């Protein structure tokens, strides 16, 4: 009986330490998270401006870490560009003016949504082309399969079936 109690206690401790370990592990994970992007505090007079700021920094690419927006990245350049966007908004610049400013300096690459032009045609049309050719292949495949389907049963097979059915009745 006593030994039973002892075992139970130990398992309680075991649970506790395991729980602690999980908490510790999760805390460390949070600390190590690479996505704690630099967030500066920006004050806006109008909520619209703040909204515009947020959409803009989520549409501009950070050129240092190319698969992140300047909102996500904590590279030095991303920080500077966020500051630039903020200041231009405060100066009353429109969305288009800010985008043009970035385009003039960094080119189309700075946009996460590339503009539709000759050079980017394949990029935009690509998915549609692939989808269409997929459907085309599927269409031909299905049509071919129908042709290859075995033809109807011949006379002999029909007789065999009725024979078997008759047998079943008896």
């Amino acid at each position, binding site marked *: 009986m006593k030994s039973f109690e002892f075992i139970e206690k130990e398992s309680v401790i075991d649970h506790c330490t395991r729980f602690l370990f999980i908490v510790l592990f999760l805390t460390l994970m949070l600390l190590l998270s690479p996505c704690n992007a630099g967030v500066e505090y920006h004050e806006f007079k109008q909520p619209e401006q703040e909204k515009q700021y947020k959409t803009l920094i989520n549409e501009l690419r950070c050129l*240092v870490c190319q698969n992140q927006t300047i909102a996500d990245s904590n590279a030095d*350049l991303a920080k500077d560009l966020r500051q630039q966007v903020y200041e231009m908004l405060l100066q009353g610049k429109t969305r288009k003016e800010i985008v043009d400013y970035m385009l003039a*300096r960094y080119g189309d690459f700075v946009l996460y949504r590339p503009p539709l032009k000759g050079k980017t045609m394949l990029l935009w049309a690509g998915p549609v082309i692939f989808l269409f050719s997929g459907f085309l292949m599927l269409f031909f495949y299905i049509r071919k399969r129908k042709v290859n389907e075995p033809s109807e049963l011949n006379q002999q097979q029909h007789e065999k079936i009725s024979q078997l059915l008759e047998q079943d009745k008896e």
Partner: protein
Amino acid sequence: MLKFLTPLFLFIILAVFLGIGLKLNPKEIPSPLIGKPVPEFNLPILHMPEKKLSASSLKGRVWLLNVWASWCVSCRAEHPILNQLAKKNVVTIIGLNYKDEPENAKRWLSMLGNPYNASIVDQEGRTGIDFGVYGVPETFIIDKQGIIRHKHTGPITEDDIEESILPVIFELEKKVIQ
């Protein structure tokens, strides 16, 4: 026959695309500034902070703008090449000291040699943004009319000097202002 050839063709097309992709350098982004006037700046000179240098004052000569910083490791690799280029005395070399501490920058130059006719100080990186700088070192070549003609991203190697930098400079030097 077609049944066997189709996958082969598809494979070849895919291989060609992937092969091209392998050779491309995603870090090299074409600059929209080539063929455009050099962005205007008026920045203090590193060794004479009371004096300022502007882009317009450099009109009439071919010049090279090299973006550098003492904290930049690749700049250290590039530096001897720039020193060699400076010795040739074929082009005005202006340094854009990007987001750096002037004290560190001066120490760096006195240690490794100074290839620059002048270095200008862009501590906040504003002029850097105007030049579309996204990685140091970067090098621009500007012609006599103040138009950007060439951009090199990343450290310049000896081959780059022979193959692109010097030919561009000589070509631009030949052109006389009309």
